[in-house]
């Protein structure tokens, strides 16, 4: 199972990075969303994978590590706020530039 999760984290991060490097705001936003999924899963993974032991005290023998879960919760909220902001910003940029290029100037979009 661990391998699968690691693979998933890798894919999310990689794709997030790729989209992040695109020239249009919407792609960048998608990239950020994927990245945040990836990093949230990663942060969650630092509590290691445990099945069937939710950290709700009920006299069970062992529980999953609750701390990473709490951190991820915070991270989710924050990344939601940030995503919302950057989306708005992309609209503002759209109004200011008349296009949705991240630099506001499509022609110079790529100089490798």
């Amino acid at each position, binding site marked *: 199972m661990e391998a699968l999760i690691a693979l998933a984290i890798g894919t999310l991060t990689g794709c997030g990075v790729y989209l992040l490097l695109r020239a249009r705001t919407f792609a960048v936003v998608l990239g950020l969303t994927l990245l945040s999924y990836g990093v949230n899963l990663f942060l969650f993974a630092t509590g290691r994978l445990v099945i069937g032991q939710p950290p709700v005290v009920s006299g069970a023998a062992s529980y999953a590590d609750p701390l990473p879960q709490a*951190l991820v919760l915070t991270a989710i909220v*924050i990344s939601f706020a940030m995503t919302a902001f950057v989306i708005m910003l992309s609209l503002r*940029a759209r109004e200011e530039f008349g296009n949705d290029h*991240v630099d506001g100037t499509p022609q110079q979009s790529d100089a490798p």
Partner: protein
Amino acid sequence: MMAHLPIVPILLPFLAGTLLLAFGRLSLPAQRWLALASVLAQIGAAIALLTAVSGGDILVYRLGDWPAPWGIVLVADRLSAWMVLTTTLLALWALIYAGNGVDGQGRHFHVLFQLQLFGLAGAFLTGDLFNLFVFFEILLIASYGLALHGGGQARTRAGLHYVVMNLAGSTVFLFAAGLIYAALGSLNLADLALKAATLTPDKLGLARAGGLLLLAVFALKAALLPLHLWLPAAYSGTSAPVAALFAIMTKVGVYAILRSHTLLFGDGAGALAHLFDPWLLPLALATILVATLGALAADSLGRLSGYLVLVSVGTLLSAVAVGTDGIAAGLYYLPHSTFTAALLFLLADAIKRRRPGSGDHLIPDADMPRHALWGGLFFAAAVAAAGLPPLSGFIGKFLILRAAPGQPWVWAVILLAALLALMALARAGSQVFFNSLPATGAAAAKASKSASGVVTPGASTARDLLAIGGLLGLILALTLFAGPAFEFAHATARQLAEPAHYINAVLGAKP
């Protein structure tokens, strides 16, 4: 109240911010007074905090009354208090300058301003890695709002880049925090420092990766090469008071680097000791060089100031990299560079508003009203920025050079940078102030045209002068009282060199 002293500088701006939000319909002047009162109170709190820790003892505040490392603690040592005081003093003048109408150009300026201070204070005082992340996010999201305050194409572009860069940075931060928790099993800085010493080799890799990723994040915040490109545009793009306040933002990165460099990866960190060393000094020096070239190439006062901020960041970090004496020198240089950067941005804006034809571009134009006065102020600011005598910049440079006797590279770069900065500023000054054109009808026409958009000069001259004079006064004070200031900085550096105090203060009498 004294028992809660460490959290007061954090809660005051929060309270002010929420109040400003709650009474959203307050008139602008009322908002200004409220904000001003809050900032003054914060200065008071910061001074109280400084005096409380100046003796060398470290105040620990256990939030929720939970013991460290499990609960979140605020830790006020000399460094934190020093940073907080710098921030609040800077904020005061930025706020006063903002009163010239900038704060009215958009919504919620004062709320965002206060909450930005909330984030800054928290970042400086927290003793918990993840809590540091949270406060980074607070000051960032607030800075996003402020950076875009007022709108405009250049501002939006710079803002967009700034935001996206920092969002990516935050992601890296989360990776780093996760790695460090996974490797060391804690988030409390003191506890981490303790655990770093006894790190099992099989988790060393994770810890090192986490630590270096932290460096990447902090380097981005501090605008260290090669992550510096966002800064000049963002700072010269945004409104002057915000740029002035942002002068402390890069210092947050510097602070974080300094903190982790000394506490987490200090001598006592076993296998993790000196994790940053191979990277810090070369990057810092490279930053200085590149930034100086940028300053030399700058075509407007705003960009020039932006690049000079980069120079100061490089100087600071190279000071941090050369050891305890260097840190002491750097800590003296830090407030100077902060105030100077703010001063430059405010001046650039004041001049811009008074040269409607040419703005703050380095091209000749008709003399502005009270030309000599502004010229004199710019001269003083330039002296401070170039690190020339007699102002504190020179003292800082002297102290840094003195701290790095064995490092010819540091010397060469810092001295060369000083010369180039001097030339850049001399060029700027003689273009803007010496090389003046007769006022033509065209210029006047331009004036009337573009003056409509910007805040009208004259109306707010007194306020501008007050803010600029205030910053100059701070720099002057830093010069006159260089003795005690450096004493404090030196004591701080020594405190940082002895993480054991910090760790014991936080974790109690643990070994």
